[in-house]
């Protein structure tokens, strides 16, 4: 009498179909084993924003009663796998319906597995992922994040490779055989079987010890009771010139604007068009970037009239959110070196970023 959940954490809109296919197909495969199941799309994530961290769950239970209890939760309990569809989500996730940035492994059950699609090694990911009091498993499925759209099925095999990896790491929640049998009934069943087996074989498991990983700075927001809340749905406003500390937005980002300050013509367009007021004027008329609140929409890069001045660069090559103009002020040449290094590591800027 038990239920287990697979949490698929994904980039809103771009990976909604991906998460939807994975969770539903896991449940269908589990039905072949006479288990009970359902999927839960975390309601607060809807309507989704482009790139915002969002979740869908597959709940698989030995019996109907265990399933029913989980189906009335926004986030089911006993998350045995968190499947992360883009490794930059490992920096933390902040749904638009939440308060603050949560660790990617916050709800992982003790002994559970965090499965990340990534080209990075465990040490690099553990720089971002907070430590846990119990040991857990970091599983890496080598690959690039698969981004599509709401109306697009991105048929690149990421869904079935991920399911194959999940079958490997869950030890019995749903078997590879059931997934293959389920896939056999679909179009391109042979290709799907191949992808399931690929994922099953390719996933690399890494045991993470208790206490291993980044510092855990997460502090849950304290919820006031009804006598403590202001009446009439009034909350303090963010003062002019300040930013909302309860909604950072940076975890939405898959690429960040990197500025070549030497090329800047001080036209102020980036400052004007940024929907999140992330450009901070410097005394000499440049614009520094508040990476805490930049959601990576790329409008600045599209709007900048100077070629190569603002470029969108893969978020995975950065740690932290410190503004970079200070580096430039101290030593413009050193800043250019840093910029070149990041661009090289990322394989150049993200082309056509933000153009839909």
């Amino acid at each position, binding site marked *: 009498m038990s239920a287990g959940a697979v949490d698929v954490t994904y980039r809103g809109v771009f990976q909604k179909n991906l998460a939807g296919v994975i969770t539903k197909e896991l449940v269908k495969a589990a039905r072949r084993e006479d288990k009970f199941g359902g999927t839960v799309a975390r309601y607060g994530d809807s309507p989704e924003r482009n790139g915002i961290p969002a979740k869908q769950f597959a709940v698989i239970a030995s019996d109907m009663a265990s399933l029913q209890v989980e189906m009335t939760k926004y986030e089911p309990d006993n998350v045995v796998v968190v499947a992360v569809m883009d490794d930059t989500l490992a920096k933390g996730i902040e749904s638009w319906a939440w*308060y603050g940035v949560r660790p990617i492994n916050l709800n992982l059950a003790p002994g559970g597995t965090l499965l990340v699609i990534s080209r990075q090694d465990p040490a690099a990911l553990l720089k971002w992922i907070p430590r846990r009091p119990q040991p857990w498993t970091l599983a890496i499925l080598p690959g690039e994040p698969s981004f599509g759209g709401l109306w697009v099925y991105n048929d690149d095999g990421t869904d079935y490779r991920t399911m194959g990896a999940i079958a490997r790491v869950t030890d019995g929640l749903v078997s590879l055989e059931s997934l293959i049998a389920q896939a056999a009934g679909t179009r391109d069943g042979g290709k799907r079987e191949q992808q399931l087996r690929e994922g099953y074989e390719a996933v690399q498991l890494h045991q993470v010890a208790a206490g291993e990983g980044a510092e855990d700075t997460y502090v849950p927001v304290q*919820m006031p009771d*009804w006598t403590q*809340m202001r*009446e009439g749905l*009034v909350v*303090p406003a963010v003062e002019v010139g300040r930013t909302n500390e309860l909604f950072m937005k940076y975890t939405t980002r898959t690429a960040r604007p990197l500025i070549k300050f030497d090329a800047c013509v001080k036209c102020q367009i980036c400052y004007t068009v940024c929907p999140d007021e992330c450009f901070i004027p410097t005394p000499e008329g440049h614009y520094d970037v508040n990476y805490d609140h930049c959601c990576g929409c790329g409008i600045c890069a599209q709007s900048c009239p100077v070629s190569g001045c603002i470029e969108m660069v893969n978020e995975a090559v950065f740690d932290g959110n410190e503004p970079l103009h200070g580096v430039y002020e101290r030593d413009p040449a050193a800043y250019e070196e840093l910029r070149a290094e990041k661009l090289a590591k990322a394989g150049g800027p993200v082309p056509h970023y933000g153009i839909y």
Partner: protein
Amino acid sequence: MTTMETRAAGTAAAAAGSEEIITGCDAVAQALRLADVDVLAGYPIRPYDSVMTAVSKMIANGQMDAEFIVAESEHSQFEIGKHASLVGARAFIGSSGVGWMYGMEALVVTSSLRLPVIALVGNRALDDPGAFGVEHNDALMVRDTGWLLYWVESAQEALDTTLLAYRVAEDKRVMLPCALSMDGAFLTHSQHIVQVPGPAPVAEFLPPYDLGDRRFHPDNPVSIAPQFNEDWVMEARRQADAAMRRARGVIAEATADFRRVFGRGPDDPFVDTYRMEDAEYALIGMGTVGLVGKVAVDRMRAAGRRVGFVRVKWFRPFPRPELRALLRGVKGVGIVDRDYSFGSNAHGGVLYTEVAAALYPEPTRPVIVPFIAGLGGREVSVENIEEMTDITEELTARGELDASCQWIGVRGPASDPRYDVERGAR
């Protein structure tokens, strides 16, 4: 009221007070002038819109200083009232029938933002068919949403209760909007004898509107009504619930103060009771049905029948303690609903359901007979009230504890196979 009469009313009122022959809508307009309302929003629909006419005359004549905004719909009208209230202006809105319905979204956010807007609902049947006559369903549609609801019986009560409503709604312990219901035609368009007070007692009774630290202003940077999720909504509802619970005490306090300041007014803030002292039977209704109800009671009393009438004034908060106390010892109760709630308990109206629920915890309960009468503005006569009393007595004598709803004044047979399909299984 003619322009000349309005001027006369204004001048006389400035001195001490005056007796006027005015409609219920005019009486509300006089109260709005006396309350120095800052922003009035309107959109015309019969029968409430006479108040718009009366107010615009007073503004044009320089007797009243207020912003009067005629919106392009009820939805906008109510939003204007809400936002005016939010920036610290005393606000007034109003409508009737489907107009009230059309602005429903704006109405529910006014109460959830806890803004003490006062509304006049000139009760009117909901379309279709297009009908101007009174039914209470329009105002009742907001009964669950945190609006204080009051049904007046006379133009005098309309004036007095408008002042009382601002006092109660704007009280820091309450901060809820209030809708004043007035029967279409019988009150909105009939002129009654009304004592219009002068400004001095009103100033004493009604303090200025003060929204405190909730006032939306550049000097007070706040965010109002952000998107809430499951983490916050229930606490917000609880706050509204607490406000509605506190409203009872504030209403009692304000009503007593009204009597002190104006030298008149009701003893009981919540219900208007008539000859209930030794009553064996009681009829309960809301609005102008009380006028005929009381006359019918006099007639029946003269014939030796021990009958009383109870008019529910405040429907929200519902006068549960008063009704329980009043009906203790009463053998049979007839509930006169000028509304419908198709498919509800016993197929009765809204008032019936509420009264029956209020009496349920009583150790001995009277026979309760639901009636529906006066829909769509159909007259409810003294004879109708007597007929309802007869039926109530008869069913009480039979010990009918599960009485089916009776329609009074409807053409057609009371019993018919097409109607009694549920007999025995209701």
